[in-house]
């Protein structure tokens, strides 16, 4: 499915008919929210919603790259926990040190994943499972199993609190830049095309002379870097490095990618639809909170897990219908 080289909206939507559903659902939910709740469209809700979900969006986008090659990265949650601690330790030196530091830590763990998968040829599922445990252990070791408070006097706090150009928090601006950069990488560069080709057929890609090794290393390092960035957001959002956070994030990220219409078998995928998927999953909770706030129903936090699972189920069933009808034409 390499036919989306040029950006033609009509072809783009047709070529990704898996992701059409996520856009429709997202818009429907937003309209529903706007009509039903008074403050839903207020700047406070939008800004805090995006601020909180920034880390999930960044992780999901990185995960999307890995999944497009047919791989998977289970380590992202632990990596984010690890780099949140790194960011907290570096926060006294200011954001100019903490940001590169946290991202570099993530990139390093991503490189370990790449080494396991590409050089040692360990299946991605197992390789990243191991780094998941390792990074979790590492986060607990360097933090002494404590949350590490950030330095409130440095400019690190600006990240989540201060608004860029007085409009949006920095977190959101950075997220938007990352997403845009990765969209360009996927859609406009040969490296991005190679990533998709690998998922479509790794052997065929090698025979075509594509640099498969380079692209595979890239996706794992990239995903690690994205998780590192998410860890930074985590530290700034909670005001502390959280070695125990990040449990289940990899699964939320996978869910976002899947909801966005990317098949886990690789070979196709969309950055924008993945962002929509992450927003959609976040929005479900946002709406649930508003619904709780109205006092008509009262659902405990535990219900969120149940609803998230049910939601994933609905999307998967919908997707498998689309996929089976699409595959009849393709194969």
């Amino acid at each position: 499915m390499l036919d989306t080289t040029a950006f033609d909206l009509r072809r783009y939507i047709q070529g990704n008919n898996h992701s059409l559903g996520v856009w429709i659902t997202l818009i429907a939910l937003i309209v529903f929210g706007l009509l039903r709740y008074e403050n839903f469209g207020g700047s406070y809700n939008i800004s805090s919603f995006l601020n909180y979900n920034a880390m999930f969006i960044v992780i999901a986008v990185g995960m999307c790259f890995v999944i497009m090659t047919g791989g998977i990265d289970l380590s992202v949650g632990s990596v984010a926990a690890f780099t949140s601690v790194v960011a907290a330790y570096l926060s006294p030196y200011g954001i100019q040190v903490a940001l590169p530091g946290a991202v570099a830590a993530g990139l390093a763990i991503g490189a370990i994943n790449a080494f396991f998968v590409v050089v040692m040829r360990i299946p991605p599922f197992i390789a990243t499972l191991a780094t998941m445990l390792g990074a979790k252990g590492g986060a607990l070791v360097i933090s002494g199993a404590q949350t590490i408070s950030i330095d409130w006097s440095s400019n690190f706090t600006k990240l989540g609190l201060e608004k860029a150009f007085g409009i949006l928090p920095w977190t959101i601006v950075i997220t938007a830049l990352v997403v845009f950069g990765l969209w360009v990488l996927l859609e406009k560069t040969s490296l991005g095309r190679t990533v998709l080709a690998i998922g479509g057929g790794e052997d065929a890609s090698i025979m075509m002379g594509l640099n498969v090794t380079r692209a595979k290393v890239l996706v794992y390092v990239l995903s690690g870097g994205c998780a590192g960035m998410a860890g930074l957001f985590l530290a700034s959002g909670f005001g502390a490095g959280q070695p125990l956070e990040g449990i289940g994030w990899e699964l939320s990220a996978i869910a976002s990618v899947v909801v966005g219409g990317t098949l886990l078998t690789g070979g196709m995928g969309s950055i924008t639809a993945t962002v929509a998927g992450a927003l959609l999953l976040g929005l479900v909770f946002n709406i649930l909170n508003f619904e709780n706030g109205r006092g008509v129903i009262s659902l405990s936090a535990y219900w969120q897990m149940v609803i998230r699972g049910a939601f994933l189920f609905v999307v998967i069933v919908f997707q498998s219908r689309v996929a089976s009808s699409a595959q009849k034409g393709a194969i």
Partner: protein
Amino acid sequence: MTMQNKPVTSASEPTAFKFEWSMISRHGGVVALIAILLFNILITPNFLHPQTLFVNISQVATIAIVAVGMTLVIATGGIDLSVGAIMALSGALAPLIFTSPFAEANPELGLALSIVVPILVALACGVFNGALVSLLNVQPIVATLIFFISGRGIALVLTNGNLQTFTNPAFSYLGTGKILGFPFQGYLVLIIAACVWWVMAFTVFGRQLLAVGGNERAAELSGVPVKRVKIGAYVICAGLSGLAGLIVVAINSASDAARIGNLMELDAIAAAVVGGTLLQGGRAPIFGAILGAVIIQLVKYTLLANGVADEVALIAKAGIIVLAVYVQQARKE
């Protein structure tokens, strides 16, 4: 990958005794076990005390039971992430049932229901997983992700997130009972492993399961009911997870839905892989999975008994998984 005609357990391959690298890699699990045992006998205080053995048996049982189920699922080329959540679900249900007024009025019936109903619920979860994988062609990771997320949620909703403590000697026998001095669940593991091994080695279902994992398309073309066999694997795995959940609750005489079976999917996958299960499917070394579970448990115990922090133990576990798969990979090439 070739289709296996025989379920080959890593320990039962008849090979000439030549001490070389391939030998070590083929019997890597056994070598690792011996190394850990020797290390412990030399270093860990009181390792040869019977109490150590009992503690380890009672703790390894749940990993081993789930690992057996996981081995079957992996043998079909799938994976089951929902085992921990299903453990939480069954573990939350049991105390709810036997502490209900009805069960207190009819203790025997209540006890029976508190074991049967959670396992039936677990089996139903397995049917759900299997149906998604085989009927809707959803990838196993995604399909079992649904219960991974919502299963524990349901358990928490049912118990309202409360810790349920209880005194019910009859139920606790599952986790604390002893026969001839050895923990009851140790026997349970052996019986389950023997039954599943027999099924895999001598029944049509077992052969079909390996055929599906070996080459699904070929199996389908030769008339194997692929969908039914796959559902079967997920159902067995879920049922065993349900049982493991009951044992955890029985050991603790308490049920905390947030904690039962937490990260169990990782332990079970690790045990299966260390035991020689190929992630691509086609092999189901049942006793290998038990061996893997024992190794994982012993590594945990070794580190704990020697005062190494829990978090470092995590890193060690990660190392073991990578090493086991790497050795497996090297053998294939």
